[in-house]
């Protein structure tokens, strides 16, 4: 394609000061590098979370097993849940979004490149802090939801819960800063002609998720701060013997926790909405419905939190409301599924690995969705709550759904990011192995759950009737590990020896395929001008433009706009390219915040040392902020002349 290069002669291509080697990564403000850092670090955490799951499955493979002690088992399920949600799925989605959103909307970077760098460092340090707990008295062992009063000091005396609070806190700040960045980028940095209703659906879903994050995360932040005060500074928010309220914790946690589920799944729905049209060689069916049903899911997500609390006994009215609201979520979700099916219908399907995963997503997500709808009914829920049935449901949504969606995205965009193609054959082997072993692992949990097996038990007796299902689950989980090893092998060999990826290997419709693979640092030599939802298809297939565009959705009747799907600005005043300089400031600020966090954890036990650590942390932070302010002034477009 080389559209960027074609016109590149007319503008001044910037000399970019990328520092070589590691320094380049530590000081980067490039959204693409930060995206890759998110993807790699999240994948490492994801593998660790997977190993934790494997250890638990080995323990549960046979009854009365003594492979793990009960306490280690408790630590593992807590860390598995926390890791997969906060350090695995969320940042994998953020990484894809970071890399792709600016490219898809025709921007050169995120709105706040330095804030973006702060987000990645806070995320990495938050994750590392969580894992430090293993070496200083034990990881948290209270579940990822950390119900009170188990989290109080008398029941959880080690610092594990404190590391959980601070680790989640750091990643939470990273998430809020990241969401703010996405909102401003998507609303404000779109190329000319890229109206909201022409944005790729992946961008739409990232926007919805950013709004959910902005409103849901502060609630978790407050709840964890209150818990921290309970543990260290004498308050009694969640201490029932002193009038505190353990149910309040559940309300606050799930007010965050349920929207969090949509934070995990909506971006992957966006991925599917990009992958399916490309490989069906058809525009998405019902673009507006797919976009706005995402908005509806995001909105409804704030009204359903108490369906996690049906067993608490909130009363029939509350249960009825939250049950009904939860049923409602099925409507926009079903709308999306039918739109995806209709997109494939009569398409000329190109069954690439990414397409395999996209179809796998739809089929597994439907199973998880159906068990979700039934779980939303209070009487059924009370029977199944805290049983393995819920574990099955949640993994069908988040593994069969979200993880398969992310794999669809990785196989789709890996060539764009690395300039190399992944091995498609190996990818399909991985897909089938993963699909089969995923179902082997999690489908029997429906049955063991309905046979009464509770979640979060470290072992069970031989005569409960759960032996066979558990053995199958454990076997499946070991095969799953093989599937992930296949993927790792695929990545490692393809980066070195994979076929060179062209700019547009899949015949895509969106702007990221208009630039080389990998894209130049500045993304677009000239800012593209967008005239429809599928700028690249319209350009490549002008004769199909009427069909592609639907009926007047993109103003196709305007004669001057008919020529081309997207053009470049051709005004004589060519816009010079302005890129942020690399800087260590965000990294320094994050280090300061992390040291501050360590100080907070030990403040009530080792007053003086901890307080000095806090002061050191604050000083480092202040130094980082000072250099941040300086570089942002020097960097500002007005200054540089």
């Amino acid at each position, binding site marked *: 394609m080389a559209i960027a290069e074609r016109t590149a002669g007319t503008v*001044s291509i*910037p*000399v*970019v*000061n990328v520092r070589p080697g590691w320094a380049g990564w530590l000081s980067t403000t490039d959204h693409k590098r930060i995206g890759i850092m998110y993807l790699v670090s999240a994948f490492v955490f994801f593998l660790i979370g997977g190993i934790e799951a494997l250890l638990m499955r080995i323990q549960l493979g046979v009854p009365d097993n003594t492979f793990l002690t009960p306490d280690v088992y408790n630590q593992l399920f807590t860390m598995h849940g926390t890791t997969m949600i906060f350090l695995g799925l969320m940042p994998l989605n953020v990484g894809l979004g970071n890399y792709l959103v600016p490219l898809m909307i025709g921007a050169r970077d995120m*709105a*706040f490149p330095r804030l973006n760098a702060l987000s990645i460092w806070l995320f990495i340090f938050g994750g590392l802090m969580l894992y430090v707990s293993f070496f200083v008295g034990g990881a948290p062992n209270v579940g990822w939801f950390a119900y009170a009063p188990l989290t109080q000091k008398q029941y959880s005396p080690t610092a594990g819960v404190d590391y959980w609070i601070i680790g989640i806190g750091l990643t939470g700040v990273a998430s*809020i800063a990241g*969401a*703010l*960045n996405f*909102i*401003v980028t998507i*609303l*404000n*940095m*779109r190329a000319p002609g*890229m109206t909201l209703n022409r944005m790729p659906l992946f961008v739409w879903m990232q926007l919805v998720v950013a709004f959910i994050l*902005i*409103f*849901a*995360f*502060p*609630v978790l*932040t*407050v*709840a964890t*701060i*209150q818990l921290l*005060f309970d543990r260290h*500074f*004498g*308050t*009694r*928010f969640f201490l029932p013997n*002193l*009038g*505190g*309220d353990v149910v*309040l914790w559940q309300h*606050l946690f799930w007010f965050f926790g349920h929207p969090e589920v949509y934070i995990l799944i909506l971006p992957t729905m966006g991925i599917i909405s990009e992958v399916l049209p490309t490989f069906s060689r058809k525009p998405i069916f019902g673009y507006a419905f797919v976009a706005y049903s995402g908005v509806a899911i995001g909105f409804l997500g704030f009204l359903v939190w108490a369906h996690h609390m049906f067993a608490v006994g909130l009363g029939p009215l509350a249960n009825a409301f939250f049950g009904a609201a939860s049923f409602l979520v099925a409507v926009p979700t079903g709308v999306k599924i039918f739109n995806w099916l209709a997109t494939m219908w009569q398409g000329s399907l190109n069954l690439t690995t990414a397409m395999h995963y996209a179809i796998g997503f739809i089929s597994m997500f439907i199973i998880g969705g159906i068990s979700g709808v039934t779980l939303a009914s209070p009487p059924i829920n009370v029977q199944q709550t805290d049983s393995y049935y819920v574990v099955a449901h949640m993994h069908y949504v988040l593994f069969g759904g979200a993880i398969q969606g992310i794999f669809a995205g990785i196989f789709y965009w890996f060539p764009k990011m690395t300039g190399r193609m992944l091995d498609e054959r190996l990818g399909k082997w991985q897909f089938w192995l993963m699909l089969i072993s995923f179902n082997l692992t999690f489908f029997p949990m429906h049955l063991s759950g309905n046979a009464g097996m509770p979640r979060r038990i470290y072992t069970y007796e031989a005569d409960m009737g759960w032996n066979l299902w558990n053995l199958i689950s454990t076997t499946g989980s070991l095969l799953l590990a093989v599937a992930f090893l296949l993927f790792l092998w695929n990545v490692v060999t393809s980066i070195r020896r994979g076929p060179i990826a062209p700019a547009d290997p899949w015949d895509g419709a969106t702007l990221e395929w208009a630039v080389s693979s990998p894209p130049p640092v500045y993304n677009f030599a000239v800012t593209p001008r967008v005239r429809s939802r599928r700028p690249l298809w319209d350009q490549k297939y002008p004769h199909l433009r009427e069909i592609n565009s639907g009926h007047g959705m993109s103003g196709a009747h305007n004669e001057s706009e008919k020529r081309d799907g997207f053009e470049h600005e051709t005004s004589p005043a060519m*816009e*010079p*390219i*302005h*890129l942020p*300089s690399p800087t260590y400031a965000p990294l320094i600020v994050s280090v300061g915040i992390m040291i501050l966090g360590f100080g907070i954890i030990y403040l009530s036990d080792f007053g003086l040392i901890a307080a000095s650590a806090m002061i050191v942390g604050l000083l480092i932070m202040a130094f980082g902020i000072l250099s941040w*302010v300086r570089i942002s*002034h*020097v*960097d*500002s*477009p*007005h*200054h*540089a*002349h």
Partner: protein
Amino acid sequence: MSESSMTRPPTAAAHHTSLGVDNRKLGVWTFIGSETMFFATLITTYFVFAPVNRARPDFQDPRKFLDIELTTVLASILLASSLTMVLALSASRRGDRRSFTTWLLATVGLGLAFIGGQVYEFNHLYHEGLTLSSSLFGTTFFVLTGFHGAHVAVGVIWLLSVFFKVRAYPDSPENAMDVEIAGLYWHFVDLVWVAIFVLVYLI
């Protein structure tokens, strides 16, 4: 500095945005949205526990502890600081450096006076026997008003950094926006105090 001047020519188009709103302004508005949820959660917690506090043997009555006179003065100080903030922004837009300095430092001074008043109030309440652990009222009151006070302190630091930045680079065309977004945050923190003052102190 030199490397950037070689490679990055100036542009007015860099500030063009899709919505026509400055990026940083939109960012601060988004942040304020998030902060609204933060304080809404703290205030909700306060109200959830108010009746529980009343029914307990270690009940501490907010009416007995809270000094409306003092906090009315504090509220007036903070409201006045919103006015001086507006005047500082207006001066900064006019390019009137002298009155900008006056009004911005006045805002900082009023902010510091508020923090001083809150320190005095907390100290007084502590000697009266109200602590984080003395009752549910103490627990919820100190965490709510303490976090608000911390936000005021952050606001003071923010305003001071804007002051020094404008002093160091008086001709930067971004100065007015720097002042405006710091002001947005400042007004938000004031507004939260109005809510706390009405809901916790007056009702």
